[in-house]
């Protein structure tokens, strides 16, 4: 069997690695906007599921104010927009720093949608074919697989607490934090039990029976993959050289 998606997951991983590295290294808001637009474009072409990403970014927008104020207070730069006496509360520099932070986060979130266009089995296989030990790649894939289950479990426990008459929203933050510590115990125990069951099922199916294993799925890179990987790496290196060495 070969992977059903058009691009090899390794190609997507390289592209995402280049995009997110650029997002971290670049400190120019215009270049960051360009990187984000490129991420969007790639995600759209690969039919990435952008809707949840938009939802997450909507939440991130609130952070822009926090980051902008924090930057303005502790590292004031640019023109002061809002001040409390002589203390600058919001500066143009702080606002730009906040916007840059959000752009970086947005690139990472959109990049995740690019990787998510491959199934985690394909990603594991890609990593294995890159000579990453199967156990490590498999561990990552199982974590991805069981994350929604863990979220579901947290929701269930929260609901159970609320059904007993505890209105979390009306409780002061300090007390609420104590309640959260109580719900941690059943969640951790539930997770450990599930992990034990999973381990038992895997053992009975000969997991780690031998140091090596065969794979039914084999990924084959096409010429488009080689071209895209080369282009991504060249583009990444060029941007870094132009940005850092020439200071443009």
């Amino acid at each position, binding site marked *: 069997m070969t992977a059903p998606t058009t691009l090899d997951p390794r190609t997507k991983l390289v592209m995402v690695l280049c995009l997110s590295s650029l997002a971290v290294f670049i400190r120019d808001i215009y270049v960051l906007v360009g990187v984000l637009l490129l991420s969007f474009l790639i995600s759209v072409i690969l039919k990435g599921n952008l809707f949840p990403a938009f939802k997450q970014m909507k939440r991130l927008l609130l952070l822009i104010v926090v980051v902008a104020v924090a930057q303005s207070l502790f590292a004031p730069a640019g023109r002061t927009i809002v001040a409390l006496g002589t203390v600058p509360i919001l500066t143009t520099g702080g606002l730009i720093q906040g916007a840059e932070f959000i752009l970086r986060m947005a690139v990472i979130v959109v990049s995740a949608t690019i990787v998510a266009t491959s199934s985690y089995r394909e990603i594991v296989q890609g990593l294995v074919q890159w000579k990453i030990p199967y156990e490590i790649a498999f561990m990552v894939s199982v974590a991805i697989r069981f994350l929604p289950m863990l979220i579901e479990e947290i929701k269930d426990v929260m609901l159970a607490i609320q059904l007993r008459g505890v209105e979390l929203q009306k409780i002061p933050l300090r007390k609420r934090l104590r309640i959260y510590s109580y719900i941690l115990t059943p969640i951790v125990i539930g997770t450990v039990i599930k992990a034990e069951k999973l381990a038992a*099922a895997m053992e009975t199916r000969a997991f780690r029976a031998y140091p090596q294993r065969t794979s039914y799925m084999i990924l084959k890179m096409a010429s488009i993959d080689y071209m895209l990987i080369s282009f991504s790496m060249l583009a990444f290196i060029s941007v870094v050289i132009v940005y850092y060495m020439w200071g443009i």
Partner: protein
Amino acid sequence: MFPVELKNLYFKYVGKQTNILDGVNLAINKGEVVAILGLSGSGKSTLCYCMNGLIPHVYKGELSGESLVFGSCLKNMKIADIATKVGTVFQDPDTQLFSPTVEDEIAFGPENLCIDREEIGRRIASALEQVGMTNHRLASPDHLSGGQKQLIAIASVLSLQPEVLIFDEIMSQIDETGKTRIKEVIRGLKKSGKTIVMVEHNLDNLDEADRVMVILKGKLINFTGKL
């Protein structure tokens, strides 16, 4: 030589005062379907773990007596050897299925045994046919019903081609339609000569059993109609 034989088996979990299995003796003939009943906490699952090697290889405790599969002591067998002789399907389908597609799930076992790709392909097709799920080969297990998930769990064990199958309360979380389909599969497996151990607490699920036993206070006795 019996496919499964337990000789004077005692087991106590770490930190417990009493034995959960207290002198269990059992010999199952080839092609026989044996049902084991018992109340919650009576040691049914522990007994399964003793028959599939999870005890002593994974779960630790004080074990004495012998657990044999085709005359070989499980204690001295490698995981790979046990997996090709004894297949186990557990109660909860969600903690047994961890692959993005049905095909990947069924391939997992043979891949661990280093079986070549062509053979794995044949085994996937055969296992899916046995459980009547051929049309779902590329589906995600997350999108299947509880009964269908359990059928895939059975298929993923069948791809290892074990002679002995242990079903640990596999119908306890399944609706009536799902149960009917699972029972049909068990009937088919019985016809094909597999030796089956069905651990159950529901008497309605024992249609295919040739022999019914009950585990009571750590001892395994013939079922006389009362738990």
